[in-house]
């Protein structure tokens, strides 16, 4: 890293840490802390957490041979409990070939098509959700650890800018609800701080498991903005920012949320 880059990088980090209205680390709360006791109980018990149905599906897919090469994920990655530990905690991560960060769903899709030579898994398909949930489950309890360097910094900045930008017919920025008004109510629902600690998660509203992108699409539709398509780079920038903003918080996948 050149001196100039290092100085810019350091300056950026300082700005990032002292952003106006951003939640100080001591006040960070997961959506878990803001839900009812009963919904928390639903998440805590693997026997009653519906997300576990997808995690089990994911385990089966992990061990199933796939693609033209006829190899399962397990053939290269072995036991996910060891090999995938900590992975979800550092995604979105930079992909050298694509020269941009990718989220966990995209990483799995890439492995599927490029290494297993299998037909692509569609975004939000049951199989992709199951595999993502299974992989992310292996990081449960671990702190989110997004590392920003000179390669990922521009994408973090893009995500931060999107989070603070007013958009949609309601002309609202994410930060107005999730930085400035978390803990208050919007039409009967408690506004969380928007830390993606438990994705993919079982949302009671969906009556099923869904990805962070699905939730972000819900938000954008909610403020009457045009939602990006699944897999859009704008989404990954925002996910990178959200995960970085939640650095240190524990992964809860598969979480349950209202």
């Amino acid at each position, binding site marked *: 890293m050149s001196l100039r880059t290092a100085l810019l990088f350091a300056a950026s980090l300082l700005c990032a840490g002292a952003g106006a209205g951003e939640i100080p680390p001591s006040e960070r709360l997961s959506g878990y802390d803001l839900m009812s*006791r009963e919904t928390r109980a*639903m998440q805590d018990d693997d026997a009653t957490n519906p997300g576990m149905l997808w995690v089990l599906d994911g385990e089966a897919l992990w061990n199933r041979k796939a693609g033209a090469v006829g190899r399962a994920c397990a053939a290269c990655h072995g036991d996910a409990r060891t090999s995938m530990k900590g992975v979800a905690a550092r995604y979105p991560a930079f992909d050298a070939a694509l020269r941009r960060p990718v989220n966990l769903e995209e990483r799995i899709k890439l492995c599927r098509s490029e290494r297993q030579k299998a037909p692509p898994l569609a975004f939000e398909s049951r199989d992709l959700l199951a595999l993502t949930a299974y992989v992310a489950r292996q990081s449960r309890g671990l702190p989110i650890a997004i590392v920003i360097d000179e390669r990922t910094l521009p994408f973090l900045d893009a995500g931060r800018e999107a989070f603070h930008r007013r958009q949609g017919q309601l002309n609202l920025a994410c930060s107005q609800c999730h930085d400035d008004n978390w803990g208050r109510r919007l039409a*009967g629902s408690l506004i969380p701080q928007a830390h993606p600690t438990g994705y993919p998660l079982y949302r009671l509203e969906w*009556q099923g498991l869904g990805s962070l992108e699905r939730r972000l699409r*819900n938000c954008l539709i909610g403020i009457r903005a045009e939602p990006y398509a699944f897999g859009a780079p704008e989404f990954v920038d925002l996910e990178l920012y959200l995960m970085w903003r939640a650095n240190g918080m524990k992964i809860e996948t598969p979480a349950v949320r*209202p």
Partner: protein
Amino acid sequence: MTTRREFLVLAATSLALSEAARAQLDPNLAANRKAAFQEALRRIVGDTQVRRGRVKLQLPPLIDNGNSVPLSVAVESPMTEADHVRAIHVLTEKNPLPDVASVRLGPRAGRATLSTRVRLADTQSVTAIAQMSDGSFWSDSAEVVVTLSACLEEGLI
């Protein structure tokens, strides 16, 4: 972006709503649902009087989402061959249909309980009825406030 043609199709379709769908717009909705509840109750207990007590129905008073409301029922009973709970029924007053679940059990259960998650379409009262081996009926009710209702709100996204 909805084209004019699409809009006209939508408008025409909504006018031609099926009877079932139109029923949800019925101005006598509350009265009809209450009647349905009474009917369901009668189907279960016949002419026998239902007594309050022995049944404990637990629901959170204010819930996160009407699609998935944790519910548990426990009935006081020795659960012996001579004296046990034969069935537990759960009913609602304001859902599109009054029945929620009916449990058949016996002394092998050890305890007469049910824990599950239900859908509630509105702020309302939920009732649990226990049918005893001696033919008597006991019940309990609980009030729940629902802000995001199931059944009637579209989960479009």
